[in-house]
């Protein structure tokens, strides 16, 4: 899908000309999807917000190279995916280098925890938290490429073709990555898929 009729691409062209208001609009529009991707993609979720901010800063710094060859979201998620993979690799090489863990500075990790605004009986909430933690654990154990493919698949605004472009692989390879990730999750979460409940 081309980006000629993409309103975000038009905003990005304004950003290319140095328009900060257009940039702020894009950040507001995409901060939740990007944060969601980064938060779920990183193995420990610390510094997720810093990385999500880096994604947008990178978008701004690379604005002069932006071309309307695809939708803006494809370009944005490609940058997010690259930064996530870099961070995952960095953490694999230097597992003890998380600033929040080492420094114990401004953020002690609690600011990155998900605020629980659900309502229900304590038992329901306990069960939901358990399922959530199991899903997060299962996601964390997936290979990085499968995890990113699955998380991108949850972004409704991206088509399979666009996910393939973001991942830099063919459509069939993308579908295969998603399929394998889902099969692994189904195995890991089998007890919850059969008996567990998940109230929305």
């Amino acid at each position, binding site marked *: 899908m081309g980006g000629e009729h993409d309103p975000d691409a038009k905003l990005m062209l304004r950003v290319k000309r*140095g328009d*900060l208001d257009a*940039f*702020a609009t894009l*950040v*507001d529009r995409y*901060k*939740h999807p990007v*944060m*969601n991707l980064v*938060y*779920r993609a990183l193995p420990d*979720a610390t510094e*997720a*917000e810093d990385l*999500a*901010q880096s994604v*947008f*800063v990178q978008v*701004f*710094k690379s604005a002069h190279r932006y071309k309307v060859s695809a939708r803006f979201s494809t370009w944005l998620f490609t940058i997010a995916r690259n930064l996530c993979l870099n961070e995952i690799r960095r953490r694999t090489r230097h597992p003890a280098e998380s600033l929040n863990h080492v420094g114990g500075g401004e953020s002690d990790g609690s*600011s*990155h925890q*998900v*605020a*629980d*605004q*659900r309502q229900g009986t304590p038992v329901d909430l306990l069960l939901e938290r358990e*399922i*959530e933690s199991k*899903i*997060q654990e299962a996601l964390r154990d997936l290979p990085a490429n499968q995890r990113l493919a*699955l998380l991108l*698949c*949850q972004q*409704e605004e991206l088509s*399979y073709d666009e996910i393939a472009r973001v991942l830099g692989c063919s459509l069939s390879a993308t*579908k295969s990555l*998603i*399929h394998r990730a*889902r*099969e692994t*999750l*189904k195995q890991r*979460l089998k007890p*919850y*898929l*059969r008996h*567990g409940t*998940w109230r*929305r």
Partner: protein
Amino acid sequence: MDRLFIKGQAMNEKGFEQLVSTASHRPLTATEEAELEAFLRRNPVLRAAWEEEEKLNALLRAMPKPPVSSNFTARVLQQATAARARAPLNRGWHWVRAFWLPRHAWQVACLLLIGLVLLGVRHGKTTNQTELAAILPMLPAAGLADVEIWRDFESIRCLPEGPLPSLNELAEALQ
């Protein structure tokens, strides 16, 4: 998803596969749900597997969204502005840094190699010309044969081997 497809049910297999794939990406529309329900009624053996798929979809969709700081955009703008302030200093050297990216390394190496070969060829030519120019003044100009002498060189060189005809025979032939 392999379990969802059974040989011999090829008629709606593609459509069913497509619907399962779509459902993992976004909630199905009412029309799509009706199509799926019709298919499952004809193929009840697939219902359990489909329900498992749909439960996983529900679990993934219901994962709570992580919170985003209220000053997220402001912080990004602050960093972007700072980056823009630094940019003019770096922009001129951007292309130099681009050359050192690993993916460009072999291209740079090829360019350097071609450049070195061209320089070598040019240097060789210049050296030859210089040496020739140095030798020429030393050649004895008077010792060189007159150009006229060499005019029949090719004819002489092409004379047949063996005994040459006598002058008398030549004279007769000319007459």
